[in-house]
């Protein structure tokens, strides 16, 4: 099964472990926060606090499931710079592997949101002329992100072929 998504004769590069920490934190904070707000509104409005209890329980289940998946999801990510193209794979349940030829890259973006910055992370996005390409690698260290960007731009220029 694994071999369907393995790159030919290359080792996947993995994401920074900080990405997992960030995902654990967001899993612990975001669903409880949203559900708590919902639970309080329901409780105050209806006065039936047992409904709020159910909502909290759902939040707890979601947090547990998500935490269970965080490590697997983090491990599922991988990318590899091959001679002529970049491979990216991810997904636990729905898996996919995308291959972008360097010659097709039009734009390489490095982004880092406030949360990512707090964890010392950045993501790299590759754009081609096709909107479906959607090649994004999250959870890279800033050094790796800039290295990847420079490397990809350089390779993109070397392979550039127009349309």
């Amino acid at each position, binding site marked *: 099964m694994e071999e*369907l998504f393995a790159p030919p004769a290359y080792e996947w590069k993995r994401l920074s472990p900080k990405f997992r920490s960030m995902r654990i934190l967001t899993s612990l904070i975001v669903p409880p926060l949203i559900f708590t707000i919902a639970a309080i509104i329901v409780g105050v409005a209806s006065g039936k606090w047992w409904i709020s209890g159910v909502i909290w329980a759902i939040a707890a289940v979601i947090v547990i499931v998500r935490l269970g998946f965080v490590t697997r999801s983090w491990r599922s990510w991988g990318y590899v710079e091959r001679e002529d193209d970049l491979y990216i794979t991810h997904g636990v349940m729905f*898996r*996919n592997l*995308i*291959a972008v*030829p360097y010659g*097709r890259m039009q734009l390489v973006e490095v982004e880092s949101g406030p949360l990512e910055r707090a964890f010392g992370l950045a993501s790299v996005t590759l754009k*081609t002329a096709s909107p479906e390409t959607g090649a994004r690698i999250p959870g890279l260290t800033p050094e790796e992100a800039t290295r990847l960007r420079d490397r990809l731009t350089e390779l993109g220029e070397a392979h550039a072929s*127009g349309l």
Partner: protein
Amino acid sequence: MTSSQPPQHAVDPEVTTPPGPPAAAGAAPKPTERPHPLTPFVRGWLVFVAIAIGWGREIVTSAGENQFEPRGLAWLLPILGVVVLLAAVTGFISWYFTRFVIDDEELRIETGAIFKKSTKIPFERLQSIDIIQPLAARMFGLAELRLDAGNSTTKLRYLTRSRASRFRDYLLARAHGHQASIHDLDQQSVASVFTDLDVTDQPLVQVSPQRLIISFLLSTEWLIPAAMSIIILVATSAFGVVPFALGALIPLVIGMLSLIWRRVIGMFNFTLAESSRGLRITRGLTNLTSQSVPINRIQGVKTSQPLLWRPMGWYRVDIDILGYAHGDGENNESTSTSVLLPVASPEEVELALGRVLPGFDLDGVELHTSPNRARWLRWFDFWTLRYGWDDRILITEQGWITHVRDVVPHAKTQSVRIEQGPLQRALGLADVHVHTPQGPVNAVAHQLDEHAARDLALTQLDRARAARTAEREHRKVRVAPNDDHEGEAELLAAFGIRRDQLLGSGGESEVFALDHDRVLRLYRSRHGAPRQTAFQLRALYETWRGTDIGIELPVIIDMGERNGRFYTVDRRFSGRSFSSWLQSAETTQRRPALISFFDATEQLQRLPCPVPGFARLIADGAPQQFSSLGELLASMLQGPLETSRTQLERDVPGVDEVWNRLHRDLAERSVAPALVHGDVCPPNAYLGQRQQGVVVTGIGDFSPHTISADPLMDVAGALIFLELEPYADAPADAAWLEAMAVERHGREIVRWIDVYRRYYGFYFSNAYAFDPTLYAWCLRQLSR
């Protein structure tokens, strides 16, 4: 309506006129002009709004007994008035500050009242030019010119329709690198008001209104909302609760109306035509749109067939055109520009695909089915899933209610993705997506065996890479003038000339002006044996010395090699290029010049040949003699056919028969051999002023086409190559010239012109790789 006022602001420094011959004209600011003065009215949709007000008032007054409150709507009128006034004012301001120049030097559009913007588009950047006539503009005989240059679209609105189409023809000529002149274009034939097709355009496919409407009524996308509305109506009226259904019905009806608008009104009178500048689509009942199809920007083709079209064998064809998907809601153009054929028979589809994907063999691709276990996931259409590829294209097929076939040339593949969900994993299946730029084409090979999927995805990248490399090679050949400058700068510097002294360029060499009497012919660095060609040409020209046939012929003064480049110094022809003159000349001038061109061609056969008998004169081992005309011409065709044979077998039904017939005909021809230029066409002829008027005074560019054979070949060539000239009346002129040839030489010449049409059709057929227009011409010759 040329304005006498100077431009409103300083001219962009880059935009100053290049140092042209009339120095005085370069100094004065160039007169710019505004679009048509009716523009603000049309542009603000004032007409539409005025009608809407009149109509709205009627509703308000007549709807008194309904639940509408007349007074409630009445206070809307002043607001509407303000809106109309604002639209008028902004429309006027924007018109007032819009100025444009389209002349022999530049294409520039200036807009903006406060923030000035000057857009100058280099001619060669123009990708396609569309003419769009919204209903309101059409009522005033106005049209919008939409200029597509790579990533940006510039609109120029509105101009009178005849000016718009004149500008289009001129700009397209310039975009193709022809040296046309904007002046004297007024003589061109005016296109039909309903289809915007010139007389010279050859319609390939025309969709009749009956077929369009029937196909629309039978299409799945129409039947589903129609059936849903009927079910809702029946169900709700059975329970007597029709008003409750309105919430669902209104969006449905709106959707259906927009579908009618796009698919029927917008596609009315749909015509796919072949013009001298490639394919052109014209369509529309209210809004008339005329767009060119930039073949090199097509990224993929989608053929679809709704279930109920199957008995009629109809198909719909859409294409991905790079850059056409960008949002442009105003005329609802974004959804429809990608339609190549709204409904067509298999023969018409094949014809059109042969033009947009020249050289691709769609039927020869072996298609694979998805494994049987795919039925668990795609129980509704698993038997329709197919995928396959050859060395140039990838094909995927799917769908039962609407059967869809997507075709992506490997060279256009952007990226590849393998996807697998949990159920697919359990079954060992996976999907492969091949990404193309935004558009209707969405090639997905569904539910493959996972090993086949991996194989397909990874090898697809290799195929894409190989195809891109091959395409790049082609392009290098095509845009060689920009590519092989190696050593050129030094060489030009040594002669004390600059690149802008370039007079012309061809497949083998570029020609620069040295002075009034001499030109520098620089052979391309990829040219196989420039030295051999030049030596053989010089020897040939030597044998002509002392023979006066009344026209100028080329003379090689000097030759040499420098910085790794081979060059010759040739005598400069007096006069100007016949081809560029033709495009701007009036009929009354053109016809006498064409006669002189014909006369000059007939004189060529008086030139002495260096060897007796049928022979190749400029080639490896030349002069190479042949015992018969047929053998010589078979040898001439050998090279081109090596590359184009498989191509022709696909594109010309019964090409073997055409080939055999050509050889039977040639075997019957008995003629004394004489010198044949082999490529007598207006770009190789020069024009000068003589007592009798403007006449052809010289013929140049002898080349490997030059042979010793049937002198009728040049006579035929002179009139049939004229059809390739990019001016509107060229085909008419060619027919006229043919009639004159018949007058001079008798009826039997018609047969031989026809034979040589087929010969040249084969001879130039290797153009499929680099010149679609020429290749299309070849196909026409071979299908006669």
